């Protein structure tokens, strides 16, 4: 029982990341009709926003300590972060420690701007082109973006820890009546799940309860009619692209402490997120979220030794297996709409 609860918890945080990325993907597909293979790169750039802010807070000046030697036998250069010099040691240390949560604020304008430039500068030229062209150009863009990140940050993962207070793990088992240390779960993964829930709720509320959202939903349902009413739907869809980029970026920012960011992390998530979108139903926002969590949990269960001993290698194929079964039973995915990608 304890193993099952642990894997459900695991699946929830994995599913949170899938859901957040898939939400942005399906938002772009639903509004602009573009299959955006650069979406994983936006997730990766978000994570590197956290890395960048952490590096900015750690920018230091050097003083020589003659009592200590460096690796060449010269006096050791001791680094002191500027933020500690400017704001005092305590505030400076706090800024460095909390760089990941603070990167949420830092990343939003950056991600919106990147999304805006991507859409206006490149992707809008491919709206009327076949999906294969869109996939090629956005895939190429993803590779360009990851190479830019690699040339600036290197190929190695960059450790970006969570604030000290969230670095431990929580004993869930005790809450549920188990012995201590039976079901323990990292604090930061719980934070990630809660954060994902807030973002997903926020996006749905924005689309459901604002006039802007209503127009966007109307445009997703019937773009031509909304245009005939004199509404500039393209402008709103561009804003939605920026929003989708920001959602992917935020997912990346908060993911940075879970696994040290590297330039390739977007590609690792991209294929899985596409499967999530297809299983959820192309263009369906609730479908993307539901499929994200469903596949995250199934993937976790498939990694259990008990399951792997019965079906070796199941952890490698479970997501694709489920995708095949669901698409055979429901060709439009879990919550797909009629007419989407069927023309």
């Amino acid at each position, binding site marked *: 029982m304890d*193993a099952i609860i642990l*894997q459900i918890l*695991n699946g929830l945080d994995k599913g949170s990341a899938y859901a957040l990325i898939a939400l942005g993907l399906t938002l772009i597909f639903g509004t602009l009709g573009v299959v955006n293979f650069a979406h994983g790169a936006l997730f990766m750039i978000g994570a590197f926003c956290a890395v960048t802010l952490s590096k900015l807070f750690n920018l230091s000046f050097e003083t020589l300590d003659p009592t200590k030697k460096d*690796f060449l036998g010269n006096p050791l250069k001791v680094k002191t972060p500027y933020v500690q010099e400017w704001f005092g040691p305590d505030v400076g240390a706090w800024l460095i420690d909390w760089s990941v949560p603070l990167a949420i604020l830092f990343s939003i304008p950056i991600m919106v701007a990147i999304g805006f430039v991507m859409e206006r500068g490149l992707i809008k030229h491919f709206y009327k082109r076949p999906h294969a062209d869109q996939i090629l150009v956005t895939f190429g863009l993803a590779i360009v973006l990851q190479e830019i990140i690699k040339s600036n940050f290197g190929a190695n993962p960059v450790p970006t820890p969570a604030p000290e207070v969230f670095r431990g793990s929580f004993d869930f088992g005790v809450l549920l009546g188990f012995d201590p240390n039976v079901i323990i779960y990292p604090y930061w993964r719980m934070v990630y799940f809660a954060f994902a829930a807030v973002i997903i709720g926020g996006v749905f509320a924005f689309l459901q309860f604002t006039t802007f959202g209503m127009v966007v939903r109307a445009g997703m349902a019937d773009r031509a009619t909304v245009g005939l009413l004199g509404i500039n739907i393209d402008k709103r869809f561009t804003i939605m692209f920026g929003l989708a980029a920001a959602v992917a970026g935020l997912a990346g920012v908060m993911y940075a402490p*879970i696994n*040290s960011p590297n330039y390739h992390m977007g590609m690792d998530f991209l294929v899985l997120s596409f499967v999530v979108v297809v299983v959820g139903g192309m263009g369906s926002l609730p479908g993307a979220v539901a499929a994200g969590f469903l596949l995250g949990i199934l993937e*976790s269960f498939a990694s259990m030794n008990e399951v792997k001993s019965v079906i070796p290698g199941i952890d490698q194929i479970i997501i694709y297996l489920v995708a095949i079964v669901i698409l055979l039973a429901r060709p439009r995915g879990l919550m797909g709409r009629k007419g989407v990608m069927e023309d």
Partner: protein
Amino acid sequence: MTKTTLSRRGVLKSGAVAGAGLALPTIFTASSAAAFTNEPTGGTVTLGFNVPQSGPYADEGADELRAFELAVEHLNGEGGGGMMNTFSSKALKGNGIMGKKVQYVTGDTQTKSDAARASAKSMIEKDGAIMISGGSSSGVAVAVQGLCQEAGVIFMAGLTHSNDTTGKDKKANGFRHFFNAYMSAAALAPVLEKLYGTDRQAYHLTADYTWGWTQQESIQAATEAMGWKTVNNVLTPLAQTDFSSYIAPVINSGADVLVLNHYGGNMVNSLTNAVQFGLREKQVNGKNFEIVVPLYSELMAKGAGQNIKGIVGSQNWDWKLEDDGTKAFVKAFGEKYGFPPSQAAQTCYAQTLLYADAVERAGSFNPCAVGEALAGYEFDGLGNGPTLYRADDHQCFKDVLVVRGAENPQDEFHLVEIVEVTPVEQVTYDPEHPMFAGGNLGECNPGA
């Protein structure tokens, strides 16, 4: 006026002969007039450095390339000479190799076997490289070693740790300076016994490819020999990034040690996940839960950040060693690049000097003469203490370092501290050891 008579049959015959000639791979024809592949004829000799310049090990590849550049500089008599001054052999004079100025070309392995073979082939065929060196993966090393054997050039392996490189996949033209999985396990076991006792239950997570398998097999055998029990060995996909679902079952498995047979990004992520799940603070069977990472690397330690603190593993070499060779190399490398070299850099630098020295001692660039000079060669002064290039399998035998993540590193270069230098006798094995069985060096191939 002459009349040319062309018959249909004649044209076909000539075409077929010319076509067959053109179709012959240049690798077999380029040096047909020479005694061996890419025999240097002018005033220069070309070496080929095949390192990951893109992909996940690009940083390690960049460090290897720095070391190669430094070695070439020293061979050509530029710079301070580095480890040439401490090398026990005095055959190298700083005038290139056999009086020929050393130049080099580089290739990008991308840490993919097919790409690595293609870049090595290009350097041999198009650039005339007479020796290939470098690399950061055993899969790549085995593939490139096979190519060099076919092409008739020497392969001086870079960072490759699988037993197979000098085991079942060994080749007469291939030589490995780096240590291997068996040696890691043999060096680690006594230290693990000292630190954690003999009554331990180990749970292994293993990267599902050649290096992971041989690493796991070696460390399991070594730890079981001292009394540890193996609770489970779970193979993890190489492409895995989040290991939480593999870590979770460890918590209630009854294991009190987690062995991460992972390298590179896998190691950084699995270790980070294990620490996040509180395994380091856990008490199992009345003992502190411990994590072991058999193969360490400074670059990976940097990636894992604070999670590496107190974690035990093994290394081929470390810049903090106190011998004269290490000091000379660290000084030369540090003054040129501003930071200390990695173990990948050291092995590549040493391999370049060892190749050049073997050519000088053999008095020939012929790969068979060079191979003969390297096989069974004993040397010192290259940072690892007295070392033997064993003739039976072309594996270097030298001391192995057991290291641990530093608790309070004074700077970013002191993330790893040396726990013990395990003497070479303790890590030496029989050439016919079952973990290395099934291979055959075969005959040296000079190519032409």
